[in-house]
């Protein structure tokens, strides 16, 4: 054909892919943490202190944050540690800073609009100082973090080529989300009164009441899924349905199933682009995807929800390791013999 345009085979440095992947993971982590604390702040107003500190324990477990040494839950201190404490490497401020550092090192790979958006979020988070007044209106801060992350992804989708680099951003985002949501579900189902690992309990399929109701609303809101849950199942909250929705629903963007689908899709695209089709990461993600799509919630619950999510997390971790070994940090000797 005349004037046939030969598509240039693009090259992506491993370091660059690594940076894009981690940038995206850190940003997702910041957003997730912001949502968790924000939801807690709102629920706390309606709850007794005991109920609230029970939730904090779950929250700390879900975020893999250390529990206070004296066992006392002080929401003010914990909020500070998880948001603006620079010495905590997984606080929101640390995550946003690391996301920006990663993007800064690959600036020529992203659009200027993306850089400006993330830079703006960074400057905003860094100009915030912790105080009583700030705490009282901290929802403004959390909203800014969430919106900043949403804007970044919106700008990314509409200004960056949806090529290999973009796929690593998707990959990082959804690997992080799979892990975070699975951990959150695990934290809810591994404690009394819902730790029903021995036998499947019919109470799980009954509507919950008052105090408990708020807890389940909290879990759904932590996953930005309360409204879509209601659309699916009405406001009739049953633990079984909540678990089904957050684990197995293919359409809810914060469900584990949805996230794993995205991870798998990104890995398929990357395998195609790098011409490494038969590689481990795709296989691992594909297997996890199949597990989730063929699982039924009553079976999951019968064998124990926390064991199930633990298994999901493990498989997700294996995929993460495989991504590192295949694309980012492979041994040179092996690559040379190919």
């Amino acid at each position, binding site marked *: 054909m005349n004037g046939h345009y030969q598509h240039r085979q693009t090259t992506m440095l*491993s*370091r660059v892919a690594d940076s894009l992947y981690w940038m995206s993971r850190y940003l997702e982590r910041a957003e997730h943490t912001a949502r968790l604390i924000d939801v807690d702040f709102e629920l706390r107003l309606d709850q007794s202190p005991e109920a609230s500190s029970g939730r904090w324990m779950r929250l700390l477990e879900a975020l893999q944050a250390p529990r206070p040494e004296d066992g006392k839950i002080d929401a003010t201190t914990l909020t500070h540690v998880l948001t603006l404490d620079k010495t905590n490497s997984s606080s929101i401020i640390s995550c946003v800073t690391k996301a920006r550092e990663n993007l800064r090192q690959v600036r*020529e790979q992203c659009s*200027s609009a993306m850089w400006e958006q993330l830079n703006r979020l960074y400057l905003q988070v860094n100009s915030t100082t912790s105080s009583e007044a700030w705490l009282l209106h901290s929802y403004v801060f959390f909203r800014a973090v969430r919106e900043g992350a949403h804007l970044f992804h919106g700008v990314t989708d509409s200004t960056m080529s949806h090529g*290999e680099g973009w796929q690593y951003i998707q990959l990082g985002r959804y690997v992080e989300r799979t892990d975070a949501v699975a951990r959150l579900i695990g934290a809810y189902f591994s404690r009394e009164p819902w730790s029903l690992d021995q036998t499947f309990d019919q109470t799980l399929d009954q509507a919950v009441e008052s105090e408990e109701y708020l807890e389940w609303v909290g879990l759904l809101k932590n996953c930005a899924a309360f409204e879509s849950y209601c659309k699916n199942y009405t406001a009739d909250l049953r633990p079984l349905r909540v678990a089904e929705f957050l684990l197995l629903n293919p359409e809810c963007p914060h469900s584990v199933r949805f996230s794993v689908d995205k991870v798998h899709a990104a890995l398929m695209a990357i395998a195609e682009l*790098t*011409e490494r089709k038969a590689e481990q990461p795709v296989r691992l993600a594909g297997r996890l995807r199949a597990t989730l799509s063929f699982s039924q919630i009553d079976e999951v619950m019968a064998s124990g929800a926390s064991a199930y999510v633990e298994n999901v997390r493990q498989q997700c971790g294996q995929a993460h390791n495989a991504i590192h070994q295949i694309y980012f940090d492979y041994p*040179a000797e092996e*690559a*040379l013999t190919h």
Partner: protein
Amino acid sequence: MQFRPPFRNYQFDSAYDEMFEAPGVPRPHYEALFRTLLELPPEEMRKSQQAADLSFLHQGVTFTVYGNDEGTEKVFPNDLLPRIIPNQEWRKIESGLTQRIAALNLFLEDVYHRGRILADGIVPRELVYSCRHFRREMRNLTVPRGIYVSICGTDLVRLPDGSFAVLEDNLRVPSGVSYMLANRKVLKKVFPTLFRDYGVCPVDHYAQALLGTLRALSPLQSTTRHEPTVVLLTPGVFNSAYFEHTFLAQQMGIELVEGRDLLVHDNVVYMRTTAGLKRVDVIYRRVDDDFLDPLCFRRDSNLGVPGLFNAYRAGSVVLANAVGTGIADDKAVYAYVPAIIRYYLGEEPILPNVPTYLLSDSSQRSYVLEHMEELVVKAVGESGGYGMLIGPHSTAEQRDEFRQRILAEPRNYIAQPTLNLSRAPCFLEGEAQARHVDLRPYILYGENVTLVPGGLTRVALRRGSLVVNSSQGGGSKDTWVLRA
């Protein structure tokens, strides 16, 4: 005599003024700009300046100042009034610089091979061998096309009589070209009509020309394999010119790599990509010789690639510029460049040098030590305005300090008369003020010598200052070379 705003306080002295041939009388090629400025409300200019500053900040057109506490990132100040060069003057500059880069390349090739020029006593042998940038490892190594310096930025100054002279050659890793391009982009927005009416030669094809130059050095014959893979090697995000590195890589569409992205196996250089290892053919390196290869040069370097120099010696990869080019821009060797041109080309230099005193010579040294208040003393291996004494602006203490340093290491210093650099109008404090400027055109040497018509006009923004380096409070402005 009073002039109309914005020239009310415009000052003249013995320096050549780029805009005016006599107080109030603009040179013909500045006439249109002069009239535009008289008509333009200062408020308008101030707004444009703010918009320009903001766009530089957002794009991150910054450099890092060393020696500062935090290694602060600063926006490179840009001045909105263009420096205009008539075509005829440019053509002379172009031929002068073409001649110069040709002679300097022949010099490097000679010094690293037979050393005829040393044997003939044109350039003293000890001067070359004592140079800090002399690389023994380069002896008898043949570089592609015999080109050592393929990217060069030469600093020119205009003397009071209106003629241009070469102040300094930058043959290692010259920087600043991204500011030339960024300035142009801004000025096109600020003065669209004026720009069009002037008929300014474009500079936007620089990145393409650079890529062409780098490809021309490739060890591959274009028929044997696909296109050569060219990469830009940066020291990383903390380097003062990191913005420029990302900018050029993006404009050329090549990978920006760090040392840790590359590895050498069997004398072949590869970059680590997600699709596996990919062979690299040409490296436009913005890393100094010292840090290129810890196995060969500085062992403590984390920026380099172990084994890179061996691969280079084996000819499987090309470095641009070559290793060891620093001997030709040593400030003491500089004094011999006119002789170097005559020796290799049999021609008279088109662009003269600035008179230079070599302090290793005892009679020149004693003259300099007696006249330090009038002279500029420079360390031979330094650049960027570091390691320099400006006699007329110095204190007795500083002069003493330099005197000690000279006596301790005379080979390490040269002196030059304090040059009265030409001045050009700059828009400062809401009006036009005269500031000293120089000019750094960028020369590319691949298949042939290419100069994009223009360059970086650097400005000493502090009143009365003669130092134009960005690290010393300098700024820059766009340079318009006219088509006719």
